[in-house]
């Protein structure tokens, strides 16, 4: 195990180590202390390393993650695990705006609430939120799954493509082209798997499915009308 105390070491040194100097052992472990809201902690990782951060982090923690497991014992700033490709990121507190933005693979778990635009432009990753999500979450989400154990703000799933949202609590409003759909057995299985992965104990039957009505896929269809 290697420890980096960011009170005395720079994020630059931490990331350089994580990118270039990891020991050749299976799943090396790195502990980060005193992050104090610093940005870009453990971003751009490309190895199955296990990173544990003790404290609150700033923007883009675990940004563009591949393979690594990153856990934050605290809150995360904007863009946590943005554009993640694979791996597993866990935020034990709350996450600010745009958590999991454009993430293409892997799994992001937020134990607390997520702020606005959680899962914006989602491209294939799974996001499980223990609390609620803010407005405009899953905006233009293209692929992947979002499980929201609490409620959601306004315009959930606006302009959705093929991503699917499962929500347990109240939804203030759905966005354009998003609609509730019946939960199939497969949906319940997916929710059960994701809940178990995240470590949340809810009954999958309590969740509702939201997906795209696909009315905006060919938004200029009416262009053919001639009078």
């Amino acid at each position, binding site marked *: 195990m290697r420890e980096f105390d960011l009170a005395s070491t720079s994020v630059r040194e931490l990331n350089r180590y994580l990118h270039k100097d990891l020991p050749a052992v299976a799943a090396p472990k790195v502990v980060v202390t005193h992050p104090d*809201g*610093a940005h870009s902690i453990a971003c751009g990782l490309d190895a199955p390393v296990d990173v544990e951060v003790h404290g*609150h982090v*700033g923007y883009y923690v675990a940004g563009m993650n591949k393979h690594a497991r990153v856990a934050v014992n605290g809150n995360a700033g904007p863009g946590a695990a943005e554009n993640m490709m694979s791996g597993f990121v866990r935020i034990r507190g709350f996450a*600010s705006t745009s958590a999991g933005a454009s993430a293409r693979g892997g799994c992001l778990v937020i134990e607390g609430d997520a702020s606005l635009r959680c899962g914006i432009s989602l491209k294939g990753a799974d996001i499980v939120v223990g609390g609620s999500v*803010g407005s405009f979450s899953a905006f233009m989400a293209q692929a992947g799954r979002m499980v929201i154990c609490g409620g959601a703000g306004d315009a959930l799933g606006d302009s959705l493509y093929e991503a699917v949202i499962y929500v347990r609590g109240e939804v203030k409003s759905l966005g354009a082209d998003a609609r509730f759909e019946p939960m199939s057995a497969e949906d319940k299985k997916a929710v059960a798997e994701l809940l178990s992965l995240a470590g949340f104990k809810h009954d999958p039957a309590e969740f509702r499915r939201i997906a795209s009505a696909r009315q905006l896929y060919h938004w200029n269809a009416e262009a053919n009308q001639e009078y």
Partner: protein
Amino acid sequence: MCGIVGLLLKNASLRPRLGELMVPMMIGMTERGPDSAGLAVFTEPVAGPLHKLSLYAGAAPTDWKQLQRDLCGAIDGEHTFKVTANHAVLTTSATPEAIETWLSSHAPELTVLCVGRAIDLYKDTGAPAEVAKRYEFAQLKGTHLVGHTRMATESAVTPAHAHPFTAGQDFCLVHNGSLSNPYMVRRKLEPLDIEFETDNDTEAACRYFEWRLREGDSLRAAVHRGFEELDGFYTFLMGTDRELALVRDAFACKPAIVAETDDYVAVASEFRSLAHLPRVHDAHLFEPKPQEVYSWHI
């Protein structure tokens, strides 16, 4: 585009340390706002008929002692100056209007930064750490303060364009974001004899809210009216002699985070400005929700 900090001390025993607690908060926002910095500090209000005016002399060398003698000769009453670098806080028993009129003809090089009974204001260009040192922010005492670091967007980098902006008495506002209709707001206010000093979008918001407060709106009502009239992205932090208020627009693209304990309420654009506060890890930490008005009283 900028960094915001605010601190309100509930615990009176901490009030002598207001500035000391705040300086690391402001320095934490250097990356968001490297051009200029400023803060408005609210103290116990001066007594009875007295008022305070914060004055900024810029690069012009000012003989403050001579200015005081001239002022005493010209206007009846007591006038005392507390000078820090090229700023001074003038405490006077005359009316602020009389002082401002006299200053504009006898010391036109001075800028009046704020007027009130509780507010003192400092702002200047330079990195936040430099500005904090120049004006001895660490020594400031008071109940609450509103601070700002600026990365200029559309208007120039000058002390006058730095935040906080003030309007009326004992009111100030700082802003992170960018309004998309500031000139429209301005054109609405100018015919009401509200004068502008800069082309900064934040000044438009500041004068708008102060106008609404003067018209009798509560701060909450003024902000709700603002949702209709002020377009763009913003986090606003406002200070009055009794209150600190925070609001974000519906899209909430500009960040903000709050830490609250029994001793204080601290607001910043990012957690890194709160990380050094005492017992912050036991604080109630939260992100303000869009279009909700958060306010705290001393």
